[in-house]
């Protein structure tokens, strides 16, 4: 999750608007609802993929692919939002719905940890290290790729023409 930037008081000329912003994001029902709706969609998508591609071996390739694709997508989303301008209501709503909600609910960490622990207890420590470290490192690479992709797509028009 990215940080909620402190609100610049100069930007809020409307007093009631400023008062509403005094309530932190995580305690505002509208924000929590956006995250819940997004999380429902993300978890549904994850479960659909898990049902569609049953795991046959001891490695959960589906969760691996879900986490990597979600990491790539979050990199693209957050970098695009940052580069498109300062966070306003529209960008905040997109970030909460798609980032914290959909992609947060789509990807999962507890399954990764539990599957790794089960591999260890099954005496497959090598596979456990490969699966968990592989997810961690390739996930970071996927995130970085997403950030790079978004900054390439969002680069200034002049340099895009000359490229």
């Amino acid at each position: 999750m990215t940080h909620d930037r402190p609100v610049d008081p100069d930007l809020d000329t409307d007093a009631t608007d400023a008062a509403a912003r005094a309530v932190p994001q995580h305690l505002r029902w509208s924000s929590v609802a956006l995250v819940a709706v997004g999380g429902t969609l993300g978890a549904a998508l994850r479960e659909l993929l898990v049902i569609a591609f049953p795991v046959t071996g001891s490695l959960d390739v589906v969760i691996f692919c879900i986490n990597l694709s979600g990491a790539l997508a979050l990199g693209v989303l957050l970098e695009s939002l940052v580069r498109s301008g300062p966070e306003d209501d529209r960008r905040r709503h997109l970030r909460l719905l798609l980032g914290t909600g959909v992609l947060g609910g789509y990807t999962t960490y507890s399954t990764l940890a539990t599957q790794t622990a089960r591999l260890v207890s099954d005496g497959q420590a090598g596979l456990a290290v490969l699966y968990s470290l592989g997810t961690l490192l390739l996930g970071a690479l996927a995130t970085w790729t997403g950030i790079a992709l978004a900054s390439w797509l969002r680069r200034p028009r002049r340099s895009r023409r000359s490229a």
Partner: protein
Amino acid sequence: MSEISPLLFLAVALAGGLGAACRFVLDGLVRSRTSGDYPLGTMIINVTGSLLLGLLTGLGLAHLASDELVLVLGTGLLGGYTTFSTASMETVRLLQAGRYAASLLAGLGMLAASVAAAGLGLWLGGLGG
């Protein structure tokens, strides 16, 4: 395709939404109570979620929790509560900021702590079986 009733699928999805909302509120509470910008909230969320999923999985393996319960609370609630994409994003952002020790803790440290927590949960859940 393995069988799952539409109602059970809906329950998994809605539990995922509830889990995501819990993550958002808890992360916000941790942020408002800590100084500095180390992503402590995500670490707390992923370690506790891994402990609970390990416990639930252990109970399921010991036949103390039904498959449906494991699916709704595990895949749904805890799957939506914990997150990989945000954890990865925070690790990469720390790397980009040149905070290598912090990024190592957010990446490798969180992974080790979560796997240990899940292992503890599995063991605790299996005690009753």
